[in-house]
């Protein structure tokens, strides 16, 4: 496949690993932000190709992981409401709410449908006009345009039985939160390439300048990630703190104008609670006033409440999301906590760091 296979070329990967080794003269700590990047790193063993001086921490870029318990509970409540259909991305089905998850709600008779795209949910609303169809809109900026389009089309076509439970989050505030945490060790970031495909990367320049950290917009294939790591390390070795773009084949400085325009029309910036991290101001998206009629929280009641137990007592998902611990540091990892019986979100989501480590490093009972 073009634009994929050449970025998995083992020879280029090896050459990059050698180039990185030649570049590094002292220890550095980097963080990749996006769960998809974490997954690729663990799956292809890219961290094991880096010299010992380089530490790669995994960031909170897993929107499934950071969805607040209150939203999951609301989705479950909607699924259980007679006449309602809750549509969701597949990853959300096993995320634990305060008691149970969407898969459990479905097994008990709730109408939960997995969709690949938000427009699929809109299509369900068209085909079943007597049912109230709700789409659980989880995601980072990458997904916001598609979610915006679903609502925009619903309004344009007068589809009244459709609404969205919005749980969108934004990346830069998460970087800010990590950088401003006392004891932060992260010296450089690999920014999320697909988020930046939409948003561009101009908003990272103030972060790089204020905190003096290099930020490299990076893709998701092995060659992309190693190139991004290398560019970041070069900056650190040379004492620079700039925003660079490794993923130039997909990312432009201004991002995708058409997508940003629609997102700006349909959504507005709001504060959001990040599971495992806390409340971050201006860190998410909610529906703009003109589209408020499509807000599922208006039709089904607000998603609030303390939500009961945030996590199992032994679960360190929050620490993992902030890069302060790695999955193998957790005493429950791969023993009490496995994908079949997860204790926390980072094991539930396919992009969570714990799930990635389990699948690619600790499958079964053996460590590789």
């Amino acid at each position: 496949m073009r634009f994929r296979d050449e970025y998995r070329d083992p020879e280029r990967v090896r050459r990059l690993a050698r180039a990185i080794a030649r570049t590094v003269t002292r220890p550095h700590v980097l963080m990749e932000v996006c769960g998809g990047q974490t997954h690729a790193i663990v799956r292809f063993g890219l961290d094991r190709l880096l010299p010992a001086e380089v530490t790669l921490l995994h960031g909170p870029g897993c929107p499934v992981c950071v969805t607040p318990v209150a939203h999951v509970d609301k989705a479950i409540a909607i699924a259980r409401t007679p006449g309602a259909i809750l549509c969701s991305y597949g990853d959300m089905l096993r995320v634990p709410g305060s008691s149970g998850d969407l898969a459990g709600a479905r097994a008990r008779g709730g109408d939960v449908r997995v969709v690949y795209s938000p427009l699929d949910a809109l299509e369900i609303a068209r085909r079943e006009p007597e049912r109230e169809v709700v789409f659980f809109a989880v995601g980072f900026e990458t997904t916001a345009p598609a979610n915006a389009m679903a609502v925009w089309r619903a309004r344009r076509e007068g589809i009244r039985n459709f609404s969205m439970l919005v749980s969108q989050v934004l990346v830069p505030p998460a970087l800010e939160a990590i950088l401003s945490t006392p004891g932060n060790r992260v010296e450089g970031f690999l920014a999320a390439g697909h988020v930046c495909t939409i948003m561009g990367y101009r908003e990272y320049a103030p972060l790089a300048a204020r905190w003096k950290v290099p930020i490299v917009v990076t893709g998701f294939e092995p060659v992309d990630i190693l190139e991004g790591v290398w560019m970041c390390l070069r900056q650190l070795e040379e004492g620079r703190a700039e925003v660079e773009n490794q993923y130039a084949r997909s990312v432009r400085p201004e991002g995708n104008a058409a997508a940003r325009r629609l997102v700006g029309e349909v959504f507005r910036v709001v504060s959001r609670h990040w599971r495992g991290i806390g409340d971050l101001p201006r860190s998410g998206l909610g529906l703009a006033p003109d589209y408020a009629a499509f807000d599922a929280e208006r039709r089904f009641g607000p998603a609030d409440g303390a939500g009961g137990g945030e996590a199992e007592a032994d679960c360190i998902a929050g620490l993992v999301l902030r890069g302060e611990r790695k999955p193998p540091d957790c005493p429950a990892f791969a023993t009490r906590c496995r994908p079949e019986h997860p204790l926390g979100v980072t094991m539930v989501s396919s992009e969570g760091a714990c799930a990635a480590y389990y699948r690619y490093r600790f499958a079964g009972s053996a460590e590789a």
Partner: protein
Amino acid sequence: MSDGSAPSWSCPLPDGDGEVVRLADGGGGRAMQRLLARVIRPLLDDPELARAHDGAVLDPGGPIAFTTDSFVVRPLFFPGGDIGRLAVCGTANDLAMCGAEPLALALGLVLEEGLPTAVLRRIVESIRETARDLGLRVVTGDLKVVERGKADGLYVTTTGIGRIRAATRIDPAAPVPGDLVLVSGDVGRHGVAVLAAREDLGFDTEVASDCAPVVAPVLALLDAGVAVRCLRDPTRGGTAAALVEIAETAGVVIRVEEAAVPVREEVRAACELLGFDPLHLPCEGRFLAFVAEPDAARALAILRRFPVGRGAAVIGRVEGRDPRGRVLLETPFGQRRPLDMPSGEQLPRIC
């Protein structure tokens, strides 16, 4: 046939005579006899079946292998096959995996009220054609009907017996360090074909299911005296599940070279798109063979003589012993990582 909530049977037939299966057709009375006489018996014309006895009486003349499988695939018809062909191949192949030559099948059908008779007829025809190609007899069976909404068209259960042909016992506990792991062809096609046939995923592909009998190449290996330790067809859970099960049963470490596992480009593309691993997708016309190293080249040559084995390849080796059983995947970058079976939720109703 399809709307948002009811699954489509994706039947390629025109409407037929509009006749449908009714609840009474499963009641054991005249209605059922009419259905059997009109649809089942004319197509499955076996003398044993025609005796209309409660069971078949056979004399296999030696040790037998005995296996059963239920088939709940959705949709019923997919590129490269249907639930009927799947059932016959699946059971025949399971018998072959035991080192046996398939002899006879028992066929259980659970039909949904409202299933068009034309669909039932097409599936039974498929069962007949596939069984006939294998020289396999359907000698007894059972039919039930459940209310509309309770069976998604129909479910099939096939139980098979076969005459043991292997000189030594084929056993998942048998592989030892030094043995090589062969696969009979490229993997994952059945999974992709069925997923593509599900309208809710919305993609088109030319990939057809690899659903096919593997009896002939297996018997050829046995007849040639190849030292086969163990055979396994990678259905649900895919190649990964098959390897892990054997590793755990035999208490060995199996090393697999990722680049050596044959995967078609379209299967790879579908996996990228949907987030699957080709090693987790089922095949219905492939098998793994654990073979003593000295016989591996000969085994490969034998497999490649058959169309269904043309893509046969060596994919790995049994490296050592470990009571927990482990499978290690060597990536193209020279990394080793454990290979595990999938969690099981991502591919419902795939077989």
